[in-house]
């Protein structure tokens, strides 16, 4: 494990221009290779936490270091270099439906090749190889030349994962990656993420809404409420009482994916 994969929050806070508090005084250390699940009700700051790691949402307070390097607060070359090593997966996939699967995955290589090569679609063979390997890892290499928009929801999310993998990242951030998927696909995607974490040792931070998913797939669970850290522990030790504290109410059927697992 290299230390490039470590994330440290020190007094990290985000106040949005409209005055809303995204994060407040977060002190947190994520070790290389960890698989961390972040839970909390909507508006608790889960997305803000993730987006502050790659600078999509700049901190207004405190610092975050990724692999020992502080996250720059302004757009620019340095922030692009940091982002190149941090893959991100989104709830709404965020792939370009009109382009082929391959082109979408190659977007994961844009920070690693000269601009003119990307511009004229002259990707080096090595980068094409990396993209193909990424597609193979999520099992959709046969779809490489299909238009991304023609794929099913689960397959589109795999394109999103492959794009993140093509970055050969030290860290993967997944912002509610299964929230727009059906239960069966949800479990497939979660297993993919766990497998990638185990096989490649990529530090993985996943935001989830469902408690049963968090407990089942997370090694470590972090609970946010109102932008503050209210829980940090292993998935095995988290109790119903902890969830109640995180959500500020008793968890109900809407907080679990599979109702049979609701206790």
């Amino acid at each position: 494990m290299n230390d490039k994969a470590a994330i440290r929050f020190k007094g990290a806070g985000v106040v949005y221009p409209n005055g809303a508090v995204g994060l407040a005084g977060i002190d947190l250390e994520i070790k290389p290779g960890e698989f961390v699940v972040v839970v909390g009700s909507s508006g608790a700051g889960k997305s803000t936490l993730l987006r502050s790691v790659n600078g999509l949402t700049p901190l207004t307070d405190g610092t975050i270091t990724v692999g020992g390097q502080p996250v720059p607060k302004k757009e620019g070359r340095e922030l692009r270099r940091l982002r190149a090593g941090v893959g991100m997966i989104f709830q709404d996939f965020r792939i370009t439906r009109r382009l082929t699967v391959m082109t979408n995955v190659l977007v994961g290589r844009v920070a690693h090749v000269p601009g003119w090569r990307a511009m004229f679609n002259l990707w080096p063979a090595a980068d094409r190889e990396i993209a193909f390997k990424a597609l193979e890892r999520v099992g959709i290499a046969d779809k490489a030349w299909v238009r991304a928009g023609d794929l099913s929801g689960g397959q589109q999310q795999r394109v999103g994962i492959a794009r993140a993998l093509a970055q050969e990242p030290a860290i993967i951030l997944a912002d509610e990656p299964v929230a727009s998927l059906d239960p069966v696909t949800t479990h497939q995607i979660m297993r993919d993420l766990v497998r990638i974490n185990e096989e490649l040792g990529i530090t993985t931070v996943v935001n989830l809404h469902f408690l049963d998913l968090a407990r089942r797939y997370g090694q470590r669970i972090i609970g946010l409420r109102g932008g503050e850290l209210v829980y940090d522990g292993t998935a095995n030790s988290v109790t119903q009482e902890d969830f109640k504290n995180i959500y500020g109410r008793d968890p109900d059927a809407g907080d679990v994916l599979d109702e049979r697992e609701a206790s």
Partner: protein
Amino acid sequence: MSEAIDAATTRPLRPARNWVLIIGALGMVSLMTWWSARGIGFSIIELACNLPGGRRLLVESWPPDWSFFPRLLGPLLETLQIAVIGTVIGGILAIPIAVLAARNLTPGFLVWFVDRNFMNILRTLPDLFWAMLFAAAVGFGPVAGALALTVFTIAVISKLWSESLEAIDMAVPEAVRAAGGSWLAMLQFGAIPQALPHYVSYTLYAFELNVRASMILGLVGAGGIGMVLETQRSTFEYPRVTLIVLSVLVLVLIIEQISESIRRRLI
């Protein structure tokens, strides 16, 4: 079930029409029309009295002088060529101009402001003005016409397309930036693909407009069929004028059909 009855009683009433607004708006338009007609001396009665003059013109213009057609082919082709050059060069130059004018994609306020005003100037000045300007600069002929249409094409496409670009979903461009992509990569892989069908559609539309416009451009000596039209009109060869108008009409209809079929396939 009582639930059904409850639903019926809570159905909202259809709101009353705002007759004051409707009558007021109609009255306003009538008043403005009356005021404008008086201003330019537009009168139905006078028009009716002058109708015989117009009838004489129509009678003299018919039938078209078909024997003139062979001499039209060259200028028609030139019209088409002027339109092609104007559309291709203008279409390419419109890309950066539209991107910089899209509020969500522009790199900075100053660039946006300068570009927006540049576009406004292009649009404010009519194509005839540009034709005269370029005719003075590079001499009378088709090159001046092609340059004028280049400017006209930039004006049309950049305005329409920058609005399409502003309407795209910024989620995908953000994902490209999250992967470490530069501004250019964000444009190329996140933003532009979403608005590409609009670009093709507007470019085809600009081509249609250009074929039409190149008829007018000839009036100021910028080449094409318009120059023939002007010579024939000034020597009162009305049957020939009719033929010219008809042939341009047919040319425009053909182009419209082709571009419509391309557009249908795209969207």
